């Protein structure tokens, strides 16, 4: 291995790692606030990529049907629980958030489909459309079992992933898609070429890390989320509603999944079931961060990307084996240094 090759591999690894960073941050964010290991995270990223690809071809993306279906289901469930509680004054608000907003977005895409919009508008549309998916899934699947054990939530997550893969096939069909590259720019660093796409991925990851930092440290909402993550009961006593925190966490997670989906869409062909493996690798990064620390998660994800890149050069047939084997020492180290909290003791 010459220094040139090492540099190219390192750049490549950082770009892949940056995508994992976005996804892993989403994992940590959702887990910290809701204790749910959101396995379908990768699927949502893949759906975003497929949505963008459909918009690019001037077709109506399958996501429209998915969002409308989920919105109707979530609204019915919300209305049922409101009626049972007898608090009728909450109905308009529920209708607005669970039915009107998602369906309005889907309708917007429906109306605008068929015409070919410029790239930035298409990306915005794809992101907007994917935004309601995770919060709606949260309402339908996780809210009724919000107080269950982490293990049960994980099991449900895995089941939800399989359901989503099936729905993905139904709504997007079996064909894969790949979008136009966001930029064709090429830069030279010494004699090592760097593509604009790589820079874009890294910059996007950096921006979203920065935004998350600002959100958690400088906004009231972010602090409320942080409080819920640290101690649900305590946060509740302080007047923070865990359900609301959960919804916001899922919304933020959706954005991260959507952005990572848009960044990988031009790099490789994405199928309705491609998301899982991407999510799994990001999950390794999240595990390195103990599913709690954002900075360590980011470093861990970059490490996974670099490891993957160098492994693909050294022994490409064993690349996945090498990446996933890292989990074992990390888990050992984590379980030796883990501080048990009161909440875990209760379980």
């Amino acid at each position, binding site marked *: 291995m010459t220094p040139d090759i090492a540099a190219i591999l390192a750049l*490549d690894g950082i770009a892949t790692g940056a995508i994992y960073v976005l996804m892993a941050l989403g994992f940590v964010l959702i887990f910290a606030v809701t204790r749910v290991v959101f396995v379908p995270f990768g699927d949502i990223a893949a759906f975003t990529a497929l949505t963008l690809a459909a918009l690019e071809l001037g077709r109506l993306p399958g996501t429209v049907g998915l969002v409308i279906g989920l919105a109707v289901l979530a609204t019915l469930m919300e209305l049922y629980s409101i009626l049972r509680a007898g608090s009728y004054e909450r109905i308009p608000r529920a209708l607005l958030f669970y039915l009107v907003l998602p369906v309005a977005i889907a309708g917007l895409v429906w109306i605008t489909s068929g015409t070919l919009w410029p790239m930035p508008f298409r990306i915005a549309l794809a992101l907007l459309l994917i935004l309601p998916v995770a919060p709606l899934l949260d309402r339908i699947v996780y809210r009724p079992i919000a107080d269950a054990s982490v293990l049960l939530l994980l099991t449900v997550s895995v089941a939800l992933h399989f359901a989503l893969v099936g729905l993905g096939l139904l709504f997007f069909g*079996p064909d894969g898609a790949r979008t136009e590259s966001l930029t064709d720019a090429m830069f030279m660093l010494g004699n090592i070429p760097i593509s604009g796409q790589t820079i874009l991925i890294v910059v996007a990851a950096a921006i979203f890390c920065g935004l998350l930092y600002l959100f958690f440290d400088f906004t009231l909402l972010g602090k409320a989320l942080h409080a819920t993550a640290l101690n649900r009961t305590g946060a509740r006593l302080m007047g923070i509603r865990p359900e609301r925190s959960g919804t916001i966490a899922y919304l933020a997670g959706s954005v991260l999944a959507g952005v990572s989906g848009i960044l990988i869409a031009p*790099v490789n*062909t994405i199928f309705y079931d491609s998301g899982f493996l991407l999510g799994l690798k990001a999950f390794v990064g999240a595990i390195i961060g103990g599913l709690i620390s954002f900075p360590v998660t980011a470093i861990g994800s970059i490490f996974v990307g670099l490891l993957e890149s160098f492994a693909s050069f050294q022994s*490409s*047939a064993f*690349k996945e084996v090498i990446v996933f084997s890292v989990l074992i020492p990390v888990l050992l180290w984590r379980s030796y240094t883990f501080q048990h909290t009161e909440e875990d003791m209760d379980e």
Partner: protein
Amino acid sequence: MRKLALAMSALAGLSLAATAAYADIKVGFVTSLSGAGASIGIPYSEGIKAAYEFQSEVGGEKIQLIQLDDGSDPSAATRAARKLVEEEGVDLLIGTATAPSTIAMIAVANELKVPMIAVSPINVAPAEGGERWGIAVPQTPQLMVKVIADHMKKEGVKSVGFIGYSDAWGDFVYNGAKDAEAEGGPKVTTNERYARTDTSVTGQVLKVIATQPDAFINGGSGTQGALPLLELRKRGFTGDFYGTPSLLNADFIRVGGKAAEGVEVSAGPVIVTDQLPDGHFAKEIGLKFHEAYKKVNGKDVADGFSGYSFDGWLIFLNAAETALEKAEPGTPEFRMALNDAIFSTKELAGVHAVYNFTPESSYGVDERSLVIVKLVDGKWVYQPESN
């Protein structure tokens, strides 16, 4: 999908309405209309529809075609095959899209002694008694690689780099290239692998370039098969690209763009039917297939898979003619006669190959079943072999 389901129920209804007519020949067709294999299972289904449109009776007997979905699941394929034989009493099974499901169906065919035509490339296991109840229509992966490797040799390629999937398909192509090397073909310089979901193959590509091969052979498939080509060109590789029929896919051309231009692959002649010279075995029947396909599916043939279903149907029609002289459809004797007739198929021209089956082997194609096509200006162009 909904249309397919409708067609399926219509077909099923048709079969129910006609159960009284015992003399009809019943054919059970299993494919993957859902699940991971659906992307090739649906073309298989479109191919059989074209075949049924092409000819739906043989020797004066009407043929009933019953289609079931196996959801890309081997256990569902087993149930579907069993249901077709035990409840519908079919005389022949045709299926299915994925190799594990096809193998599962063969086990049922062996057990219930019903002839089966496999449309996936699998090695058909003989039944307990040693007799065979199944044949496979497609070209073997080894043959696909051998034909392109021979072509490389003719073109004077001395060394070739390899990047392929880290799965059975990658192994097939790599081993095929290695076999060709042992017979004086180009030297294979690398054995690099990647996964279908990978977003980058930079590491593998750098390794290939470091060995400075004359050309590159692709062990991937479809759009993800374009990934190494794009990266190789980006890193300044100038050698020729070669591949197998698994690259034949409309999206491969779109995604590969300029980097994929000039790639040469071995392919079933059905891909380039209209460019074949007059007198080529696949020309006349191929045109009929394209016509029937367009009529029932409303679009042009864009893949090789539908052709396998069509050829399976041709093999069945040819064998049924002989078998009808010996026994009544719906009887064990007829199934036996049909099986014997399938295994004595001689020089039957299909859209992919000229089929010759013998009791010794379940594969019946030779090198005539593959031609070389080259991607020129985004279209596959037939390359006549200059021997």
